[in-house]
């Protein structure tokens, strides 16, 4: 079907254009190439081409020990590095049946939410810029800087802070940790309404977003579109709610659902999730129990022979780790089911028959991180 169209284009019988967007294009947010067939300005179909930064992480992991694997998982979805670490750690801990201290659970949950906030802030910044609102980029990055400073103080790095390790944390958090978070919550509660004033009610923004790229709940489930993108279609897929891990069973929060399924609904879900993340942080930050920052682990971690599966909710959806162990210190096979991989391939379904300018809005609203797709 597609080959026929391409042939028609080449011999000049059709009026369609084939346009490549990417791999080096700002609106693809990474090295991703969309092969777009256009009829005038209208998109007929889109073929995503991936693999430009395929590093073979799953293959590399087969020769690394479990504490070493943690450092590679950062490099998948670099904006939810902490959740990626946690997925592997939880999987290993479940396999070994290690009970981590309460303190670790609380700190991990706080870091999850901080990381989710940082990720959503960057998404908001970049999404506004995709649609021509340059101011959002400065606002978003200004506020994200505060979270990155908290990370830097405690872990020594801002983005890829392999702070989790099987059994607990690498070391204890900085004494300023709680104070800085409380300052941030207070600051960001004032700044978040500004985000709404800038974009949410903006007429130009709404014309670019409302009704663009509608995705039904059935499509979301069939394509496995999880995270805020899936919840924008009304699919209750928040694993923090449905399969709680760490300290998520101890906090109160609502699962943000919208039913329209368009670009604006996905936008609203993320905006509401930022408020929820703040409220989760507030519930936890004063109640971090005292205790060890790690459980007692053997120096060489060997998993029992068998298969282990663990799912966590990253900022972009469901990350599943599937480990096949043969009893050695390295996994026999490790598989990462990454959220962006499934989220990307729905784009042909939801962006067809829209204008090419809407494609930028739709791919922005899916919040793609390309290293997570390619792995």
């Amino acid at each position, binding site marked *: 079907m597609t080959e026929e169209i391409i042939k028609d284009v080449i011999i000049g019988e059709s009026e369609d254009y084939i346009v490549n967007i990417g791999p080096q294009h700002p609106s693809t947010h990474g090295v991703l190439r969309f092969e777009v067939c256009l009829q005038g300005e209208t998109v007929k179909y889109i073929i995503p081409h991936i693999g430009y930064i395929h590093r073979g992480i799953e*293959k590399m992991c087969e020769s690394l020990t479990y504490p070493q694997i943690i450092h590679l998982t950062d490099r998948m979805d670099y904006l939810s590095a902490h959740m990626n670490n946690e997925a592997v750690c939880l999987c290993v801990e479940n396999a070994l049946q290690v009970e981590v201290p309460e303190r670790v659970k609380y700190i991990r949950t706080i870091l999850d939410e901080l990381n989710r906030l940082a990720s959503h802030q960057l998404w908001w910044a970049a999404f506004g810029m995709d649609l021509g609102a340059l101011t959002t980029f400065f606002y978003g990055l200004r506020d994200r800087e505060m979270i990155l400073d908290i990370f830097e103080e405690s872990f020594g790095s801002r983005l890829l802070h392999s702070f989790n390790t099987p059994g607990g944390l690498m070391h204890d958090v900085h004494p300023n940790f709680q104070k800085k978070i409380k300052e941030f919550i207070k600051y960001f509660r004032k700044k978040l309404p500004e985000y709404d004033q800038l974009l949410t009610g903006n007429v130009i923004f709404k014309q670019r977003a409302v009704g663009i790229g509608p995705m039904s709940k059935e499509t979301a489930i069939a394509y496995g579109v999880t995270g805020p993108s899936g919840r924008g279609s009304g699919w*209750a*897929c928040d694993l923090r709610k449905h399969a709680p891990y760490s300290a998520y069973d101890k906090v109160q929060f609502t699962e943000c659902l919208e039913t329209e399924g368009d670009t604006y609904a996905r936008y609203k879900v993320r905006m509401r999730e930022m408020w929820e993340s703040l409220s989760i942080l507030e519930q936890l930050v004063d109640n971090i129990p005292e205790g060890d920052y790690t459980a007692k682990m053997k120096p060489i971690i060997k998993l029992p022979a068998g298969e282990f599966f663990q799912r966590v909710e990253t900022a972009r959806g469901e990350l*599943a780790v599937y480990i096949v162990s043969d009893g050695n210190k390295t996994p026999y096979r490790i598989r990462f089911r990454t959220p962006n*991989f499934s989220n990307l391939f729905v784009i042909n379904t939801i962006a067809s028959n829209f204008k090419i300018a809407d494609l930028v809005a739709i791919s922005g609203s899916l919040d793609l991180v390309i290293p997570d797709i390619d792995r």
Partner: protein
Amino acid sequence: MLNRDEFKEIISKLVPEAEFPEGTQLPEVIVPVAKLVELVEKLKANPNTSFDYMINHTAVDFNTHFMTVYHFESTTHKHLLVVKAKIEDHENPETESLAALYPTCEFFEREVFDLFGIRYKNHPNLKRLFLEDDYGHPLRKDFRDEVNIIER
């Protein structure tokens, strides 16, 4: 939400030769490749199981054979099931495609085809996803790349 025994009861009626390994983390069933599509189709349609969401599909190379692994979840009942199919032929592995039932599976299958070289019958567009056409299949255990991978 069904438990292991209830899954066992439903599945053994559909596929009598199915195996149910004990002591696994999730309920698990191993079926012959020939029965895979039929079983998954019926489990998806059955209102008691209704596995409408495919979380994950991958394969594992066991040197003598391949095992394809499917993780399913039901969005209504919230239960999980692992379906596995064993591919005996290690030289020319071939199995059935589930892309018609789960659109997301089309791309998982292309990834497995790319990295393991497992061919899927009835796949709409079986092309390599990440690597060049003349590259080997890196996740196979007998894969060697003397230029780029340093053996330890």
